[in-house]
């Protein structure tokens, strides 16, 4: 038992290092030329064949021109010097991004070393706040977590009593079932425009979207868990004259707890999936917006870091509810 675990973890570590190594090798190839050059060897060879000097290719690539643009230039048959005399590449209608951004943009997919440096860099000051488009990654994460906590908490407050009602009363269950069945499969993001229009507040709208996506698994599981409580236990409570509140609190709730926590676990997973998408749509703050913002700036390494963080947080949320679930589980 112990040794299978150890073997498993060893294998995990091996997979990790193999992945990093492959990643490293795969990203090496495109940057084998001078700093800032983004062209593949085959592309350089093609340009050279069209009569462009190797030095010129490197300079133009460093300036941020694409392969297509350079092919056009090569087609003109001019040297770089002649180009400069003719008024620079701008005169030919070629635009390159502003220096810095273009440079990182054209270096292609970052290698593990570069992402590692970015991780250290970001995590050395994770909570900085320099205006709307420049916040530390963990600060953005806190915005997302806050939205999830609020939306999920509200959903729990509604789902639990409502689930009890539906689970205990077949009439209400039958009455509300069609609504639940129709509302449940609606993508939470489909609510977003309507929420924005009605609530007129981006923050509240995203909380609403989390609320609406996390309520269904909790409602359905609570209903099912409450309805499935063994009738012997209910009868026991009745013969002990427990009263409605004590019956619910001391018999039905603990009996249904594992099912309810399973619902909560499903809900928090969905909420975490949805918040990233919602923040990409709404913008402003949050880890989803962070990813979107880095994509717009083509900071691939920050993006990778953010994706990693999203995965880790999702894992932590699931593990936390898994622990709660185990705490309240029982063997029948």
């Amino acid at each position, binding site marked *: 038992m112990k040794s299978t675990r150890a073997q498993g973890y060893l294998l995990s570590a091996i997979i990790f290092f193999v992945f990093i190594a492959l990643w490293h090798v795969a990203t090496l190839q495109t940057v084998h030329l001078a700093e800032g050059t983004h062209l593949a060897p085959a592309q350089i060879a093609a340009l050279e064949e069209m009569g462009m000097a190797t030095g010129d290719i490197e300079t133009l690539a460093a300036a941020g021109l694409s392969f297509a643009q350079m092919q056009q230039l090569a087609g003109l048959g001019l040297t770089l010097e002649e180009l400069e005399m003719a008024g620079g590449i701008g005169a030919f209608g070629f635009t390159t991004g502003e220096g810095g951004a273009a440079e990182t943009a054209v270096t292609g997919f970052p290698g593990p070393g570069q992402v590692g440096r970015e991780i250290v860099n970001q995590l050395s000051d994770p909570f900085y706040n320099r205006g709307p488009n420049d916040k530390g990654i963990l600060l953005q994460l806190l915005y997302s977590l806050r939205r999830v906590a609020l939306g999920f908490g509200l959903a729990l407050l509604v789902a639990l009593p409502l689930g009890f009602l539906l689970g205990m009363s077949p009439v209400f269950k039958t009455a509300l079932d069609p609504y639940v069945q129709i509302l449940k499969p609606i993508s939470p993001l489909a609510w977003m425009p309507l929420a924005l229009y009605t609530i007129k507040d981006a923050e509240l709208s995203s909380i609403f979207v989390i609320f609406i996506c996390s309520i269904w698994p909790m409602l359905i599981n609570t209903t099912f868990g409450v309805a499935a409580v*063994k009738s*012997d*236990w209910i*009868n*026991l409570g*009745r*013969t*002990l*004259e*427990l009263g409605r509140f*004590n019956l619910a609190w*001391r*018999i039905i709730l*603990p*009996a249904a*707890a594992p099912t309810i926590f399973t619902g909560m676990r499903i809900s928090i997973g969905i909420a975490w999936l949805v918040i990233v998408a919602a923040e990409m749509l709404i913008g402003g703050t949050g880890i989803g917006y962070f990813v979107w913002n880095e994509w717009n700036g083509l900071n691939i390494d920050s993006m990778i870091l953010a994706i990693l963080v999203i995965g880790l947080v999702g894992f932590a949320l699931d593990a936390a509810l898994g622990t709660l679930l185990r705490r*309240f589980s*029982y*063997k*029948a």
Partner: protein
Amino acid sequence: MKKQLVLSETLTKAYPSENRGEPELVVFENVNFRIREGEFVTCIGHSGCGKSTILNILAGLQSPSKGYVFLDGKEITRPGLDRAVVFQGHSLLPWLTALENVTFAVRARWPEWTKAQVRAHALEYIEMVGLKDAFDRKPHQLSGGMCQRVGIARAFAIRSRLLLMDEPFGALDALTRGSIQEELVKICAATGQTVFMITHDVDEAILLSDRIFLMTNGPRAHVAEAVSINLPRPRDRAEIVHHPGYYTIRNHLVDFLVSRSRELSGGRHGATPVPVHNAKGELLFPPDVDPLALSETVTR
């Protein structure tokens, strides 16, 4: 003669038939019986004759279609702490330990007690069923027999007027069943608890009972007779079978189950209505039968 504690009067349970036009299904009809204070009564009858239904009506968990049951002169209409129920499955709360399962009931019975009082009282009953060393275990860590013992401790702990048990040992193996039966004999002797129990085990019924209610087959089942078990107490499972009257009683019961229960059955359409009242309009109870006295008359 001890005071009468339970009275069942013209108790009837019928279910509407599934097909239209067919008469309703009368499970049992005009069931009359009395249980005296401190008496141990078992009820035997073929499966489906309505034993569990009668027990549930006594518990207040089901209601009759017609007739009444009284506890101490008061009609039973809902469940209450004056009755304790041991269900067929152990029905322990699996998230609580053995002791907590008992304190759960004790707290409900005496809400004004302190924690220490509740615990001490519950422990007393846990010890009584021989589970002192296992009080801290959850039901899944206990054997089926131990679980049923906890259920019995819980039922006795609330000191109800009437203890109801529905085939409490049905799911246990023969050896375990034997040792719990023996404990039950002792506990009942010590506490003087009034018990109404359902069983399908004839030997179990003889060992435990003062009287055995024999029910005819359904539909329209009724209690045909109340067999008195006049064997000396305290009884011992190994010794009682050597009593000269044991097999007389046993044969009487088996004979009823094998043939008479069917012959006496009311049948689906109620061809032979069972008399409920005598000529003076008084309630008729099933005859008290003592197989030992019967056999004496025969041999004499």
